[in-house]
């Protein structure tokens, strides 16, 4: 038992272990995003269907446990990502006076901590509005109504668009990076993984982002 604990600690405190934990939780979050998006598509089916879906989710007795697990995944991802980033800052105490990238970095790879932070800020607002919103508001037109009301505000729509763009940039590096972190790198596979990662990132940003925009335009609601 102690041996196992020691092995786990050694793994989770090593540079590669930390990265693999960020990668695994990152991919789990990608799975969550895909599921969440599937639910969002029901908004296009109108008030009845969407509210029934929301009802179905909230009436599940396991929901609190699932939410707790999801929170755990988020906290782990954020915690380890901050740890990794902090150590990386310390690893170069003195900066270069002249710094030129050699061609490996991308916008996504060099901004992970910023796009991550933007995503986190977004999540806090998002959960406050859609999950912790007063029961009273939900009684009128259900969760559907809350969504429609929220996206009447241009400021909200702009914030959503910006945050989802950030998420897209995060994933443009994140998805393929997680594969590399787990050691999947192969002449034949890697170009495909990179393309699929970009496609996934773009799909998440566009499909989630379309909802506030279409609502504002009056196409949903």
């Amino acid at each position: 038992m102690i041996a196992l604990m020691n092995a786990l600690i050694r793994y989770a405190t090593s540079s590669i272990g930390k990265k693999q934990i960020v990668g695994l939780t990152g991919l789990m979050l990608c799975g969550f995003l895909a599921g969440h998006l599937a639910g969002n598509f029901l908004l296009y089916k109108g008030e009845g269907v969407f509210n029934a879906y929301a009802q179905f989710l909230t009436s599940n007795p396991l929901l609190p446990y699932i939410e707790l697990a999801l929170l755990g995944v988020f906290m782990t991802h954020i915690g380890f990502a901050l740890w990794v980033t902090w150590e990386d800052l310390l690893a170069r105490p003195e900066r270069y006076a002249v710094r030129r990238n050699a061609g490996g970095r991308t916008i996504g790879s060099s901004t992970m901590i910023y796009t991550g932070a933007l995503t986190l800020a977004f999540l806090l607002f998002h959960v406050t509005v859609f999950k912790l919103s007063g029961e009273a508001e939900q009684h009128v037109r259900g969760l559907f109504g809350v969504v429609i009301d929220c996206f009447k505000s241009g400021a909200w729509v702009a914030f959503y668009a910006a945050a989802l763009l950030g998420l897209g940039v995060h994933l443009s590096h994140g998805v393929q990076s997680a594969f590399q972190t787990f050691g999947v790198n192969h002449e034949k596979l890697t170009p495909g993984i990179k393309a699929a990662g970009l496609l996934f990132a773009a799909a998440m940003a566009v499909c989630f982002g379309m909802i506030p925009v279409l609502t504002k335009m009056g196409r949903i609601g």
Partner: protein
Amino acid sequence: MSGMKLTLKIWRQKGPGAPGELRSYGVQDISPDMSFLEMLDVLNEQLIKLGEDPVAFDHDCREGICGMCSLVIDGRAHGKDSGKTSCDMRMRGYQDGDTIAIEPFRAKGFPVVKDLVVDRSAFDRIMQAGGYVSVNAGSAPEAHSLPVPYEKAEAAMDHAACIGCGACVAACPNASAMLFVSAKVSQLALLPQGGPERARRALSMLEQHDKEGFGNCTNEGECEKVCPKSVKISSIARLNREFLRASVLY
């Protein structure tokens, strides 16, 4: 006399921990056929004549095989020529009147000794942690008793090409030495001789890497672009696999 006139901005630092600064120097009569280090020799001769302290920089073979030269030239480790060390780069890529900034490799794990010289003994300690094969002393075994497939031998050679210069650390935004560690681990993991100590090697070399204060690899890919021996980050992927396997098995 003909030849290029250049302005050099060179990091000068008297000793470990001392404050340093970029100082400007002029050099003349630089032939395009000179190597980058020969150009620095010209500067140093000039400084010595003036009674000034010459610029300290590391070098040994001056033909791209020893891994001693360690310059960051205009923000790029080993300068602008891909697949080459600083010593192997010629001056023909520059033009009369150019200004060139020259800095040491910068990382917590590579403290500056003087001017452009950094202490890379961290790499030696990583090697000592497991970058070897323990063998029984005795007469050499019959070569055919350990068959190695051609592809494996070639792949092992690609990793063994690493000269341990540390350009990967210098170029990495996180000052990670993962490309170095991965080349050393992979080189042995691919060969039957490296098999028995494979798991222990991956764990202890990585542990030493982390202890030395190098950062974490975030798959930026800068290292492979500056590596003078073109070691690829697929090597790091192999290390990641080796480490995961070792963590489970060992």
